[in-house]
Structures are given as C-alpha cells and as structure tokens.
C-alpha cells in the first residue's frame, strides 16, 4: 500500500497548494512544499535493503474491471532508481527554487505543477499496468507543458510548451497503440505478465509494430533524434524546472521505458538496432550541436540530448545480451546496461548541478550568453567549483563520477563491434569517441568561457554585483557536487544497493543478479577505453583551443541543418495547406454542397447498381394505365420541366400549383382520397405562402451558370433521377415479402373506424401523428420567431450576456 500512497501524496499536495497559497502569499509556500519530496525520498530509501535482498513490492487497487485497467504498483530495482531520482532531485529542486523564484511569481501555480509532475512521474515508474503507466505518462507531458509555459507571457515559452506537448503526446499516443497491440498479443496490460510471456511474442505480426510504437514513445520523451527538438525550446521553463524535468527525471522516462521493456523486446534484433543506433545518433548530434550554442542553457539542453543518447545506446547494447547469438559473452553486454543505469544516475547529479549553476549565473547576472560572460571564477568561487565538478564529470574526467560511467561506455562501444550482426562495425566505437571528444569540448566551453577569460568585462560584473548567491541557493548544487565526487569514490555502494536490483529487473531471466553487476574501479588498467579517454582529452583540448577556427563548419550543410526547421515548416505547411484545402471545398456555397452530396449519392448508388442491374425488372405486376392518366402524367412532366425554363417566379409557382393539383388527382386515381384532400389544401396554402412572401423579392434574374457547371448540374439531375427510377423498378420487380398492412384491414373491429388510413394515423401509428403535429407546432412557432425576433444591432457577433 505504501507505493500507491507515495504516488497519491504529491497529487493531493498539488491540489492543496493553491488553497494554501491564498493564505501564504510568500516564499514560505516553498518551505511548506519541501517536506513532500523529502519525506517520500526517505520512505523510499527505507525500501532499499529489502529490494537489495531481491524482494519486489506489488500492490493492486482495482479500477476499471471492464477494461482490465488497475492501479497495480510495482516497486523493483529499476523503478527504485527513478523513484529516488524523482524524490531526491525533487527535494533539491524545491529547495533551490525557493531562492531562485521571486516573490512576485505565481508560486502557488508553480508548486502545484511541480507536485503534479512529481506525482505523475512516480506514477509512470511505479505502474505495472501499462495503461495506467500511460495515464501518468501523459500527465507528465501535461505538467511539463504547464511548467514550460509558466511564463506564458513570453512568446518563446508558449512556442516551447506547444512543441514539447505536441511531440511528447504524439509519442505517447504511439506508445499507447503499442501497448494495445501488446494487449492483443498477451491479453494483459501488466508488464510483469507480459515479461512472463515474452518468449511467445516474436511470432506475432504485431510484435514489430508494437515495439516500434513503444520506442516512439520512449524516444520522443527522452528527446532522441529526431524528436530531440523540443528539449532546447523547453529551456524556456524556469531553471529549476529545467534541472528537474528536462535533465534529471522526465527525460529519463523514455530511458526507463526502454529498460523496462528489454525483457519483452530484447530478443529482437530490430530492438537492438533501433535503440543502439538511435542512441548513438542522438549522442553524436547532440554533442555536435551543443558546441555551437552561445546560450548556456541551450548548450546544456543539447548536452542533455547527447547524454540521453549515450544512455539509450548503452541500453541498446545491453539488450544484445538477450539476443540469441551463439558463443557470445553476455556479461559484456549486460555490463553496458549496467553502465547505462549508472550513467543515468550520474547524469542526473552533474546535469542537475550544472543547471542550477547556470540558473545562479543567470539569476545574478541576468544573462546566459557565453559571449557576454567571462571571468566569473573570481567573483563566484563556490559556484565555479561546483560548475567545474559538474563539467569535468560530464566530460568524463576523474575524480568525478562521470568518468566511471564514461569508461564503461567506451568499453561497451568497443565490445559491441564484435557482435556478429550486420552493420555493427568499428564505426560504433568511433562514433562514441567522436561524440566524447565533442562532449569534452563543450564542457570546456562551460568552464572556461564562463568562468575564465574576458577580463575586460570585470568592472561591469562588479557593478552588477557579481558574487556567489545567498548560501541557500547553493545548498542544492553543493549537495549534488558532493555526490559527483562521492560516487566516484564509492561507486560500488551504489552498485550493490541500487544497481543490482535494477539489473535484476532488466534481466529477470538471467538468474543470479550478482553476475550482472561488474565491479567498478577508477583504475582499471591501461585498456583500450583508457587510451580512448586520453585521446579524447588530447584532441578535445586541441579542438577547444582552435574552436573559433573550425566553428565555421556549422554554417556549411549538412552541419547547419536543423531538425527544428522541419518541425516549423511542417506546422506552417500544415496550417497553410489545411487552410487552402479546406477553403477549396468548404466554400459556403450551398450549390457546391448539394453537388457533393448528390455526386456522392450518384457515385455510390451508381457503382452499386452497376453490379446488380442485371436483376430482372418485372413489369408483370403493373396495373393498367388509361389514356387520360397518360395524358395527365405527360402534362405533369411538361409542367415540371417548364418550371426550369420560365423566367418569372410567379409562373413557376403557378406551375408548381398545377403540379400539386394534378398530384392530388393522381392520388384520386391511385385510390387515396385522404391524400388528395390533404394535398390540395396544403398545396394551396403553400402557394399562398409563396405569394405572401414574394412581394419584396426582386425580379427573377435568369441564372446563367458557366457551361461546364450547367452540364454538371444537368448530369447530376439526370443521373439522380435515373438512379431513383432504376432502384424503384428493381425493388418493384423483387418484392421479397408481403406488406404487413393486411392487418389494418381489420381496422373496423380493431379500432372502430372504417377509414383505414385514419385508423392508422389516429390509432395504430398515432405516435407518428402526435409527433407530426409537434413538428407543425415547432414550425409555426419558428416562423413566428423568425419574423418577430429581429436583431437590433446586427453584425458584431455578440450574443447578449
């Protein structure tokens, strides 16, 4: 029961915060929020020992029995990592935000969103039921949207929020379909049950589509190429948000999902390819683009993309352990997954710290543009120290935790090239290495272009009061800084208590989890990985020094390409084309609409009839026609056709009246006296109505449509008529059953009335009649309203409030 409560608490708190804020209109609100993540973190931490001993926590609250959707929570090693990150980073970010955000901001809203996000994120990682997972998944998108658009007055905030929402929701929807497909194959929505059936899945046709769709969800959320474009724009959010959502937690949701589904899909080569290659591509593209950024936050965004790609590729390589390749040493690959999880934690620490530092710089100096910054090390020593630790860790330098996981990554990239699969070659370690070089370069940019050089600007900084921020603001980054160093020295504590259960969750079929956890050592001999690192530092330094010279390549295609442009173009094209397309057929012209409807009728019926026209027409049942009936029918036809050609309304009405009267006569001939009666009166009243309304109408202008239009109209008219005729004849020739109306011939005994038609109208089908006079009443009142209720001031679209 503890986990559902864990999820619920932030939601409740988020509901509570706005109310609280109406009483506590100050920063104190932050202090009131702070205990929430902290307590959750502590509670979660208490579960670590039992997880390390191999236990899992399951709990189910039944929700939608009909659809088999239940709140099944599942705490295992994998979700624990994320849970700790969410609550831990949550605590730090809240603490940091208390100092970062000004009193004037809508703090109530801010913390509400933040808590909403926290709850959703916990929901994502703790849900065993994929649909519930999806519920929370979308809620993270929503809360992310709200947080990015926190300063919604800014155009860029809105654009960024929109982009993030569109892309992540797209992925989410894809993922949902993937889940539904999995359900179709397995009959369950429980991940653990799916894992249990994993072996049978690849035989299904839906296996690959489901996998790709779920990956789509993961990739969009974790900002993998080419869906990464939302992440830089998401930096419009307040920096605590960037630190929390867009580096430490939400973007890890995709990573989590991939790790979670390795047991389900890992046996597929396509899975390996997709995850690994997309990861590598993201890694490369992210680091490459990070170098060209001038905005520190943008730089961090691309670096995050790149790092996410790194983790993703590690999971991809890790999933190779599931592949059925004879003779392969699986521990090489499981080590990659281990590295991925390890780096996931490390990245959160150093990237969180860096974001907070950038936030401090921005907060203190009002700019994040590296071209305007420089030499801050002197003024902000503590800030600088933490920045140094974070950057070097990210660059993969000792003695920081990033070094450890980066080494593991390089080893994995070297290991994977031996995998006996097509397309897997030496280029993988090369890409890994190149990306690492670039990573090194942008890390140096952060450190040196912000905190060193450009001494000439010093006085300006002094004027602006550049100095370390208040201590409170430094607490959170400092804690992270300590962790960056601490994890370097004691990585195996993490390995034993946290990573081992997680590895067990990723490879449930591999038995003993001990074998899945390699021993991490800072010094692991002069192996190829270390040589690569040395190369990175050498080449990276050279590149950094000559940065200004080679940076020009960013103006040359394909390096100048931005996926962003595709997105922008897509939206513009979509809106523009939609506008044109829609306006093309939604003209508002009634005759166009009639044309569509009738053409649809003609096309559909024409096609259908062309298949069945051979059905015999049977005229044998036809009753006789007398001469006068022929004459009258001819008269009616001529009168009708004449209406088309007359040039005066009045004549048309007269002809219509004649038509009505002759129809009444036909009713007489066809033994329908009641119809004749009604028809005559209705026809006359209608004619009178025509006359009543005519007086003010202008002369009937001859309509002269263009010739093609005329031909089309004529075609439609004739074709419609023919279809009506043919269908009618077909029906008449193929009567299938006797009508039920024989029954009504007992009307006299049944109802007491001798007029069958009236008995039907007044008794058998009196309900029709009742509603029909209702129709009449509405029509009458409608006419009354139409005439009486005139808009006094027409035009401006106002309705009276």
């Amino acid at each position: 029961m503890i986990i559902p409560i864990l999820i619920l608490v932030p939601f409740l708190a988020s509901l509570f915060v706005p109310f609280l804020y109406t009483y506590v209109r100050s920063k104190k609100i932050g202090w009131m929020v702070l205990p929430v993540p902290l307590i959750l973190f502590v509670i979660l931490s208490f579960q670590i020992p039992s997880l390390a001993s191999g236990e899992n926590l399951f709990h189910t609250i039944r929700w939608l029995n009909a659809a088999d959707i239940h709140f099944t929570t599942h705490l295992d090693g994998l979700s624990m990592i994320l849970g700790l990150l969410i609550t831990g980073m949550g605590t730090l970010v809240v603490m940091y935000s208390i100092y970062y955000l000004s009193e004037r901001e809508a703090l109530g809203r801010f913390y509400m969103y933040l808590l909403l996000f926290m709850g959703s994120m916990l929901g994502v990682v703790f849900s065993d039921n994929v649909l519930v997972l999806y519920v929370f998944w979308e809620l993270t998108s929503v809360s992310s949207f709200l947080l990015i658009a926190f300063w919604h007055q800014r155009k860029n905030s809105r654009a960024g929020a929109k982009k993030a929402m569109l892309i992540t929701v797209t992925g989410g929807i894809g993922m949902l379909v993937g889940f539904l497909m999995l359900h179709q194959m397995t009959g369950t929505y429980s991940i653990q049950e799916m894992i249990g059936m994993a072996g049978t899945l690849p035989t299904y046709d839906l296996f690959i589509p489901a996998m790709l769709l779920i990956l789509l969800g993961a990739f969009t959320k974790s900002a993998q190429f080419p869906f990464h474009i939302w992440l830089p724009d998401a930096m419009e959010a307040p920096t605590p948000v960037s630190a929390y959502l867009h580096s430490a937690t939400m973007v890890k949701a995709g990573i989590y999902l991939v790790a979670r589904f390795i047991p389900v899909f890992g046996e597929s080569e396509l899975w390996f390819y997709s995850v690994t290659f997309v990861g590598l591509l993201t890694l490369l593209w992210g680091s490459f683009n990070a170098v060209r950024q001038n905005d520190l936050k943008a730089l961090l965004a691309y670096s995050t993309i790149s790092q996410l790609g790194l983790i993703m590729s590690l999971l991809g390589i890790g999933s190779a352990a599931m592949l059925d390749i004879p003779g392969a040493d699986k521990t090489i690959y499981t080590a990659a997954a281990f590295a991925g999880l390890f780096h996931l934690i490390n990245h959160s620490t150093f990237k969180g710290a860096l974001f907070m530092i950038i936030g401090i710089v921005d907060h203190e100096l009002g700019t994040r543009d590296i071209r305007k910054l420089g030499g801050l090390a002197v003024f902000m020593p503590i800030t600088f120290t933490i920045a140094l630790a974070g950057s070097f860790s990210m660059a993969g330098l000792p003695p920081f935790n990033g070094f450890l996981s980066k080494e593991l990554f390089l080893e994995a990239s070297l290991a994977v090239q031996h995998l006996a699969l097509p397309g897997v070659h030496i280029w993988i370690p090369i890409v890994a290495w190149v990306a690492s070089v670039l990573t090194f370069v942008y890390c140096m940019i952060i450190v040196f272009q912000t905190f060193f050089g450009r001494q000439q600007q010093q006085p300006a900084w002094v004027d602006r009061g550049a100095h370390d921020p208040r201590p409170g603001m430094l607490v959170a980054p400092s804690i992270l800084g300590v962790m960056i160093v601490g994890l370097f020295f004691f990585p195996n504590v993490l390995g034993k208590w946290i990573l081992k259960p997680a590895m067990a969750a990723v490879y449930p079929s591999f038995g003993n989890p001990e074998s899945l956890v390699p021993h991490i050592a800072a010094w692991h001999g002069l192996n190829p990985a270390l040589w690569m690192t040395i190369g990175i530092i050498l080449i990276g330094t050279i590149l950094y020094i000559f940065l200004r010279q080679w940076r020009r390549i960013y103006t040359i295609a394909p390096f100048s390409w931005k996926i962003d442009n595709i997105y922008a173009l897509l939206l513009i094209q979509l809106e523009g084309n939609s506008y044109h397309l829609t306006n093309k057929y939604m003209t508002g012209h009634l005759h166009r609409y009639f044309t569509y409807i009738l053409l649809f009728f003609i096309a559909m019926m024409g096609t259908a009839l062309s298949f069945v026209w051979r059905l015999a027409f049977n005229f044998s049942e036809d009753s006789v026609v007398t001469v006068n009936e022929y004459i009258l029918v001819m008269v009616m036809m001529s009168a009708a056709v004449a209406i088309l050609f007359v040039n005066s309304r009045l004549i048309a009405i007269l002809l219509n009246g004649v038509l009505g009267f002759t129809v009444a006569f036909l009713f007489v001939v066809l033994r329908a006296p009641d119809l004749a009666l009604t028809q005559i009166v209705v026809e006359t009243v209608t004619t009178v109505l025509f006359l009543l309304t005519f007086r003010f109408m202008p002369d009937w202008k001859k309509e002269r449509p263009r010739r093609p239009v005329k031909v089309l109209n004529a075609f439609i008219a004739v074709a419609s008529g023919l279809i009506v005729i043919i269908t009618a004849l077909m029906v008449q020739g193929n009567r299938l059953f006797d009508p039920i109306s024989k029954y009504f011939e007992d009307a006299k005994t049944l109802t007491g009335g001798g007029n069958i038609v009236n008995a039907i109208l007044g008794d058998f089908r009196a309900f029709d009649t009742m509603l029909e006079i209702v129709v009449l009443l509405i029509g009458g009142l409608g006419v009354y309203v139409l005439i009486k209720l005139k808009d006094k001031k027409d035009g401006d679209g106002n309705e009276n409030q």
Partner: protein
Amino acid sequence: MTNALVLPVLIPLLTAIVLTFFRNSFILQRTLSFLATASSAGIGVYLLLRIQSEGILRLDFGGWEPPYGILFVGDSFALLLVTAAATVTSIILLYAFSTIGEAFEKMYVYPFMLFLLAGVNGSFLTGDVFNLFVCFEVMLLASYALLILGGRKVQLVEAFTYITINVLASWFFLLAIAYLYGATGTLNMAQLAERVAENGQGPVLTVISLIFLLVFSLKAGLLLYFWLPGSYSAPPAAIAALFGALLTKVGIYALIRMFTLVFHHSPEITQSIIGIMAALTLIGGSIGALSSSNIQQIIAYNVVIAVGFILVGLAAGNEVALQGSIYYVLHDMVAKAMLFLAGGLMISLTGKAKIGELSGLIRNYPTLGWLFFIVMLSLTGIPPFSGFIGKVLLGEGLIEAETYVLLTLAFLSSLFVLYSLLRIFLNCFMGEAIIGSEEQVVLKKRTLLPIVMLGVLTLAIGIGADAIAPFVNDAASTLVNPQTYIEAVLDKEALLKK
C-alpha cells in the same frame, strides 16, 4: 409494457408545450424546463437499471403488437444515450439561464430546446424506422428554430444552408424508407432485421442500405459534413453546445443501430464504405480544425473529427470496438458541450472570435482558462478524463479487427484535436493580457458553474468508467447479437397465441 419508456420523450414534450403558454414568466420557464430535463435523465438511469435486471424493455404504443404499431425499444445503448443527452441538456440549460437573455426567453428558446431533446430521445428509443424519421424531424425543426434565434444575418444564411441540406437528407431518408417498405413490406426495425436475415441481404437490400448510409452520414456528419462547421458556429453558445452535443449523435446512433441490427450481413461492402468514410472524415476534420483561426470553426471541426473517430468503431464492428464507440459517444456529448460552452463564453466575454484577436485571457478569467485546458485534455483522450477509456477500447477493437489504417488515422486525429485546441489555449488564454481589469466583462459564477459541472462530469466518467461499464458492455453485446433485440421485440410465443 413499460410506460416509463416514453417519459424521456413525453416529459420534455409536454413541458415544452405547456411553456409556450407562459412566454413571459421566465422563472416558471426555467424551473420547469430544468425539471423536465433533469427528470428525464433520472428516468434514463432508472430504466438502465431495469434493463440490467429485466433485459430489453419495450413499450407498444396503443397496445398494438409489433410490427403493426409503433413501439419504443429500450436497450442499454439507447438509454445510455438518452441519459447522457438529458443530462447534458440540463447542464446546458443552466448555462442558458444566465446567458441567453430575455429576448430569447420570450421567443420560446426553452421550449425549442426541450423539443430538440424530445426528438433526440425519440430517435434513440424508437423501434420503427418511419417513426425514426418523424423523431428526426422533431429534432430538426427544433434545431431550425434554435438556429435562427437572434436573427443575425450569418445565422439566417447558415440556417438556409443547414435546412435545405437537411431537407434533402430527409428526402433521401424517405426514399430509403420507401424502397425498404417496397422490398420488405414492414417498418418495424426488429422485423426488418428478421426479414433481411431470413432472405439474406441480397443486392437489392444492400443498395437500399446504401441510401440509409447516405442519410445517416449526412445527419452524423460522416464525410458529408459540409453543412456542419457553418451552422454550428452561427448560434449562441448554449445552442451551439446543444447542437454539438446532441445532433450528430443521433445520426451516429442511427448508423450504428441500422448497420448492426438490420444491414449487417454484407460487412465487406457496408462496413468497408463506412470505414473509408470515417477515415476521410478524420482527415477532413483534422485538416479543417487546423485551417481556421476562428474559435467556433475550430470547435466545429472538432465535432467532425469525433464523428469519424466514433464511427471507426462501427467499421471495425467487433464488440470491443463498439464498446469503445459507445464510451466515446458518451464522452463526446459531455466534452463537446463543455467545449462549446467554454469557447462560446470566451467569445461572448470578449466579443471576438479570432484567436489572433485574443490574448492572456487566463489572467482575466483563470477558471475559464483551466476549464478550457481540461476539456482540451479530455478531447485529446488524455487520461484520466472521459475520452481515455473509449479510446483504449476502440484501439483494442481496431487492433482486433486488424484495421490498421483506421487505427492510425483515429489515433493521429487526437493529435490534431490537441493541436487545434492548443492553438486556442496558447493564443487566447496565454500571453500578455490585453483586457484591463476595469474593462473586463464580469463573469458570473452561475455562468461558469455549468462548465464546471461538465468538467467534473468528464473527470467522473473518466475515473469512474467502471460504474457505467455494465451498461456499456450490455449495449455493445446487444449490438453484436441483434437476435437479442429481435426476440425482445417480436416475442414469438406471444404472437403465436394470437
């Protein structure tokens, strides 16, 4: 015999008629009309519960055994829709009370709304195909009257378009009924189903079924939705909401009913066509929703998208998909009403309808902004709001039916819904506030209350979907087993006794 079955029609009808005599007593009008709709909803619930225990209910008007008389057949599907329609109408009425204005109240706006509801409920309940036509007409006439209320030029012009197109549609309806009667000699839907099944749905019947398809598609806005955006964006918000929530649903209901009960024997033809039409509707609606910068137009195209979405389930045709469609119909009634009210309120508060002319409204009207946000999420199908469960079930059904193109389009359409509404939200609610607090129109609490209620409802349906699950499941199971319906209506033993 269950006389209660007629009450969802009779109560609004009688109330409307009585109210025409009291044009000027607004209090009476409001009280009675609300009581009428609310009690109709209550009766709907009562009947749903009875169906759970007694099976399909039936009321033969005048005591005439089917197929000779007209009858109401209450199965879960019909009554779910009845209940939803009455509930939503009640809430819309509440909104109308505070916004519609005395000029309209004098001009029978509440009677017209009640007539509309009566027609809609009648369409859901009737078991006779000609009576369905008549119920349609009640609904249509009421909608005509509501559409012109106010008499602005735009309204008049849109009304003319709307009415003439509906006249043509009604004509096709009669045409179809004529042919059907010629071929089968009956009008009772159950007997039609029986006779069609007995004879096998030969080419003649299939041809006839296509005309029904045309008719109901016109009403539902399935592919033939040209009339919809214009006419739904012309009237005041309360009326537009009523249209958006109810009108297309009747067409959807009729399509589902006819093509599961009567014409389900040639799915390779009819369901394929429905599928293609639904696909094109999804595309057209999605494109349309992006094409406009007018709030009302965007909202109206969202109606179109929903139509396609729901009928995708009919194209798939299996039980799960139909369950999804039913959930989604219910959801859409609530959410569309909410969307129309929220959008309409924005326009009436500011006097502007173009998204480019509005900005920062959330500062002026925060609650309205959040309600709009909620309905946006709900319509996108984002959980835990009401659209989710329908979407999930529909997805399951489509996968089961292996109709992947429809699956793709249906789920992609959610994105267009999101995008189109997001445009409104971002452009109009977010951004710099352009209306100063002194010039802003006061938004009364009781105006907002109905929208809040709808918001609560969409959340409640989303979270408490299980509460209506038995009804939805029963409804879908009746749809896929038409024999249940036929037997409930044409009670063989009773007929033999005569």
